[in-house]
């Protein structure tokens, strides 16, 4: 009888304790799972000098992002102006038809059609002692091989994005596009992308089968996937949308040689 009053606070304390522990364990579980899914292979020691360089690179990336947005808007404004003219409407229609064809050939238009999607990301395996880290991460050569296999298999338009997230920026491959690396960093058209990489391609029926059978895939990419556990998936799609190129299409060092009409 005398114990009852003291039971309530103890029960309350136990409940609070249980709730706290459950919350803490939930946080550990969530963070642990997220941490497990991260690619540990890219983590390295960071010096203060590197941090200063990282700061510069990040600022340049922000500038790049802003200019790409402004350029996209300016191109859209230009297209609106190009679609109206006070002169001959027939001449305007013909010229705009030629302009559209040239923009399509240049990769400046958003395109859609049947095709396929490829996704590739770093391996989640622990790197055995003595083995090079580069075997377990996606390198420039892997992306170049995938793109080579796609073009050689009949792809008509390709874009690459550096994230699977909805709305992640995708970079259209055009005549001046470089897939370039600086260590583990991969730049496509000068835009730094990070894994997982998603490559979308429009092309005729059988694109995926030809892609998987192409030597650049079967002899170079897929063996690395098998040997080191790079995450890789590909699937055909009834419809793929590939965004138009945003960037410089002018010539600074040369001029077009116009053909006589």
């Amino acid at each position, binding site marked *: 009888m005398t114990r009852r009053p003291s039971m309530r606070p103890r029960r309350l304390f136990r409940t609070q304790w249980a709730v706290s522990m459950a919350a803490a364990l939930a946080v550990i579980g969530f*963070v642990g799972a997220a941490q497990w899914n991260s690619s540990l292979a890219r983590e390295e020691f960071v*010096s203060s000098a*590197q941090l200063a360089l990282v700061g510069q690179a990040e600022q340049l990336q922000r500038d790049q992002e802003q200019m790409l947005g402004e350029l996209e808007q300016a191109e859209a404004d*230009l297209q609106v102006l190009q679609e109206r003219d006070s002169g001959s409407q027939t001449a305007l229609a013909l010229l705009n038809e030629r302009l559209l064809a040239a923009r399509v050939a240049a990769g400046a238009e958003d395109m859609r059609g049947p095709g396929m999607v490829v996704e590739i990301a770093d391996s989640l395996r622990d790197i055995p002692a003595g083995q090079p880290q580069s075997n377990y991460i996606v390198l420039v050569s892997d992306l170049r091989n995938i793109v080579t296999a796609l*073009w050689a298999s009949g792809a008509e338009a390709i874009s690459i994005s550096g994230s699977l997230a909805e709305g992640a920026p995708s970079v259209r491959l055009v005549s001046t596009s470089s897939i370039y690396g600086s260590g583990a960093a991969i730049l496509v058209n000068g835009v730094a992308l990070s894994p997982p990489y998603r490559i979308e391609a429009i092309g005729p029926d059988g694109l995926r089968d030809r892609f998987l059978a192409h030597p650049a895939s079967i002899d170079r990419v897929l063996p690395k996937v098998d040997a080191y556990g790079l995450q890789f998936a590909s699937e055909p799609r009834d419809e793929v949308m590939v965004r138009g190129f945003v960037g410089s299409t002018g010539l600074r060092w*040369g001029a077009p040689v116009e053909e006589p009409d």
Partner: protein
Amino acid sequence: MRRRAAQLSLAIVAVIVGVLLIGQLRSQAPAIELSGLSAQELSDLIGTLRAGNAQLSDALTDVRQQVSEYERLDVAGQSTLTLTGEDVIRFSAFAGLLAVEGQGIVMDIDGQFQPANVNDLIHELRNAGAEAIAIDDVRITASSVPVRGTGAIAIDGVEIGNPFRVTAIGSPDGLTAALERPGGILSLFEHEIDASWAIIQREHVTVPATQRDLTPQVAEPVE
């Protein structure tokens, strides 16, 4: 005793949560992806980003000037067809449908080349700012990739020679420096595939138009 055990448990949990959170934040923050790079790699990256941003800035200026010119003619009630015609030429040249002439380099190169080596060379030139490239007489478009032909490397169905000639429009100094920098692509080729080369900078080179039809068969412009 029980209370001390509880405090100890909480402390351990807090330490684990802290360590995991720091690890997670480090792996999620974009800065850390870059900080995985060495100082040399970061410097290269910064150089590439700077060059790319300069090109973007020029392109933005050009397009804004075009917009102003269209608006001026529009207000004056004059036709803008000539301006649009110039744009057709700009995109056609960019795509590879028109030949391009201007400053650049001509490089004759020899070695035990594989298609991937030629592909690497194309990407190196593009990254160095080449505006138009031809290998032998084949204009390199977006979809032009070197592949193993029946007897030699082929691009767009045309076999290239060994040695072969690379013609590129762009800054002669910039292109040469990018190709010949210590540890750069030509240095690698020299060691890996026994390559030898000669680069000539020229005030006037011509890169031919592609012989291919670039009209897509299944892809359609989005309305």
